[in-house]
């Protein structure tokens, strides 16, 4: 039961990353793939109607975490206090920049909100990347399951660590590149004209850059957390994750080289899923490693809510998921195809 809930909660986070990752990526590339005000409206139109639908997966993930792993949320969120509020403020600015930019047809106004949009998406990608690095590396959990962490200490990933060290920074770079590549692949699918051409070139370049970074990130993770790899060998889900990764790379590469945009985008999504499934499976059952002492680590079994709470959640969650899939089908069917700035705008001007 607890293992199943670990999988469900991971699933919700993975869906969030795949969905909102495209918005982070599109946002980071906003300035370089779109040069004129019209082209920039095209990028906004590609993510505009759906960003809040993507963002609520994070809310759904957070709520489910409170319900089934309350002690994990309590330890992690209090420990990451300042970093989380930075993420929140970036999410606020990102959402606002998408919504209000289109309200006034004015170059200075839109230029300002484009700036906010780009910067907040960059910071979000970096912060989420550093957060992923923190999960693999661990945090200074004490015997009571609490920690409180500075932004950085001595930049070494052992002992009394900070949010940023050489390992989490390099994970942040890797994540930023991957998400930018994901966004470029999405924009290739959704746009036409010059934006399409530039996005396609960026997608190829960034995915190519991601390959050596992936190798570096894997070696670093092995250095920082050798147990994780030994542990992963015994988990069949890790092998499944690796299979997904290899399959999706084939799809992505073939899609990119043969201009099959939908195939490339699906490959890109599945690749993110594969990476995160492998990571989540390698960590299980630990949810939060302690860099101070292994016995302080919090496993899913330590942080789970009571049995009755898990049973109740098992009843309503599948219903909620079925509904979410229905909306997903509706949205996918309604929003299929390229965006057009004459049709897919808020109609404000």
């Amino acid at each position, binding site marked *: 039961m607890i293992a199943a809930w670990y999988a469900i909660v991971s699933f919700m986070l993975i869906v969030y990353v795949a969905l909102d990752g495209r918005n982070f990526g599109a946002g980071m590339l906003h300035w370089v793939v779109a040069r004129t005000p019209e082209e920039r409206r095209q990028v906004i139109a590609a993510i*505009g*109607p*759906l*960003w*809040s*639908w993507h*963002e*609520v997966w*994070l*809310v*759904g*993930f*957070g*709520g*489910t975490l*409170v*319900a*089934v792993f*309350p*002690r994990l*949320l*309590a*330890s*992690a*969120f*209090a420990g990451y*206090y*300042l970093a*989380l*509020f930075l993420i*929140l403020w970036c*999410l*606020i600015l990102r*959402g*606002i920049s998408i*919504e*209000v930019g289109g*309200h*006034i047809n*004015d170059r200075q106004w839109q230029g300002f909100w484009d700036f906010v949009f780009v910067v907040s998406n960059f910071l979000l990608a970096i912060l989420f990347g550093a957060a992923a690095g923190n999960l693999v590396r661990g945090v200074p959990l004490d015997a009571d399951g*609490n920690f409180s962490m500075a932004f950085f200490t001595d930049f070494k990933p052992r002992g009394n660590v900070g949010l940023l060290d050489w390992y989490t920074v390099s994970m942040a770079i890797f994540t930023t590149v991957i998400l930018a590549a994901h966004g470029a692949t999405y924009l290739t699918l959704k746009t036409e004209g010059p934006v399409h051409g530039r996005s396609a070139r960026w997608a190829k370049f960034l995915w190519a850059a991601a390959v050596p970074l992936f190798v570096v990130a894997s070696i670093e993770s092995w250095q920082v957390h050798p147990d994780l790899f030994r542990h992963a060998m015994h988990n069949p889900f890790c092998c499944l994750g690796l299979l997904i990764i290899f399959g999706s790379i084939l799809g992505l590469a073939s899609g990119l080289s043969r201009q099959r945009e939908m195939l490339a985008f699906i490959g890109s999504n599945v690749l993110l899923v594969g990476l995160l499934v492998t990571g989540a499976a390698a960590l299980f059952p630990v949810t939060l490693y302690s860099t101070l002492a292994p016995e302080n680590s919090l496993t899913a079994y330590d942080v789970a*809510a*009571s*049995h*009755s*709470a898990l049973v109740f959640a098992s009843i*309503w*969650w599948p219903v*909620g998921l079925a509904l*979410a899939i229905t*909306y*997903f089908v*509706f*949205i996918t069917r*309604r*929003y299929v195809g390229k965006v057009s700035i004459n049709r*897919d*705008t808020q*109609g*404000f001007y």
Partner: protein
Amino acid sequence: MNSYLSNPAIWSRFQFGFTITYHYLFPQLTMGLAWFLVYWKWRALRTGDEQYNKAVRFWAKIFGLNFAVGVVTGMPMEFQFGTNWASFTRYAGGVIGQTLAMEGMFAFFLESAFVGALIWGEKRLGPRYHFLAALGVALGSWISGFFILVTNAFMQHPLGYRVEAHGALGIASPRDYLLNPWALVQFSHNQMAALVTGSFVVTAVGAFYTLRGLHRNQAQLYLRTGILVGLVASVLVAAPTGDQQAKMVGRHQPVTLAAMEGRFEGGSNAGVAMIGQPNVAARRLDNPIEFPGALSFLAYGNFGSYVHGLNEYPTNSWPDNVELLYYSFHVMITLGTIFIGLMAFANFQNWRGRLVSNTWLLWALMLAFPFPYLANTLGWMTAELGRQPWLIYGIFQTRDGYSKVVSNGDTIFTLIGFVFLYFVLGLLFLFLVGREIGHGPEGEVVTDARQLPEEITPELPEVIATQREEHFV
């Protein structure tokens, strides 16, 4: 260093109180306005009258701005359960997390999947799907309200739980938890209050245009729909829902009811103070003017019933700010009464055919729209201050709930950040909404001759309207 302000719980309370009060300014309008959009979209489908589509297009823009600010200011609420209230989450997460998660799965997914379609997608979707989008958004926003109120009701009047391993709470009866009578009463009361806000805003815009002689047909549509819904909702917010809510408080939180009314002495035949200033130091209500027996009747259904006074309870079980609670409650009640009177009079004048010609009334309707926001906020302050000193009434105290590892400095820093960010956000919001109202419903030209020089030919007003826009930009 033992002052009240060095207490860590107080900063987390300030931050949560500030962020949630600010956040709730936006959902209260969207929950009310959503049903106006559904109604007009439905009328447009049925009658084919473009008038209704124009109204939807106009209000969807204002709805969209509210919704966006509501979404982004709502995210911090859920996060703060972990960041600032970690001890509370450890203790009660297995229970309250259920409804927080259900809100995400059942309400937010529905709402956010369709809100983009409602605001961005009229051309892409066509009229039928556009109506469905409006309906999905309205339902989603109310379902979201329901789950939040179930969560709050558990904190006010915990039901359906049991204490399990690690001393944390688990679910004993999902049914008792989800169908908590407190939640049902509070939900009806709160949703009616949201409709009051929505209808007052719609009415105010209609009155504003009418006074300026702009967008005549649209203005009358807003006015007539607004005052009708406004009257019905204002009445329902008082009775039965508000009345039931007060009875619920009297039954389960008698000390809270005593504080809300500023009653220190218990007694039968208790009155409701129309005017009076609570004097906590002297333990009395100064200069009271009371309706004798009214409180006994309202709380227990009998003029002679005994109503408890604060003196019967130890001071450490009193809500920790009696004065704030008293004024929140009393100002809310007074405003609610004025709302009924104003809307009843507006409907009466409309029935006599004198609504649009009554300048005084239109001014009053235009200026009235901020007051439901105040009343809603004070209502929530009554509920939340009245719950103190408990975080979960009777079983878990607020002072035990905050995150032990988060320092005062961290919370003060993020509170400053929120105050500044939300201030800027508020300016931006007001600027954009003001601008949309200035533009008016799409495609209408200036109809008031007084606004234009007389020699202008009929084609010109549109040109002038666009010139004005450009000037404004």
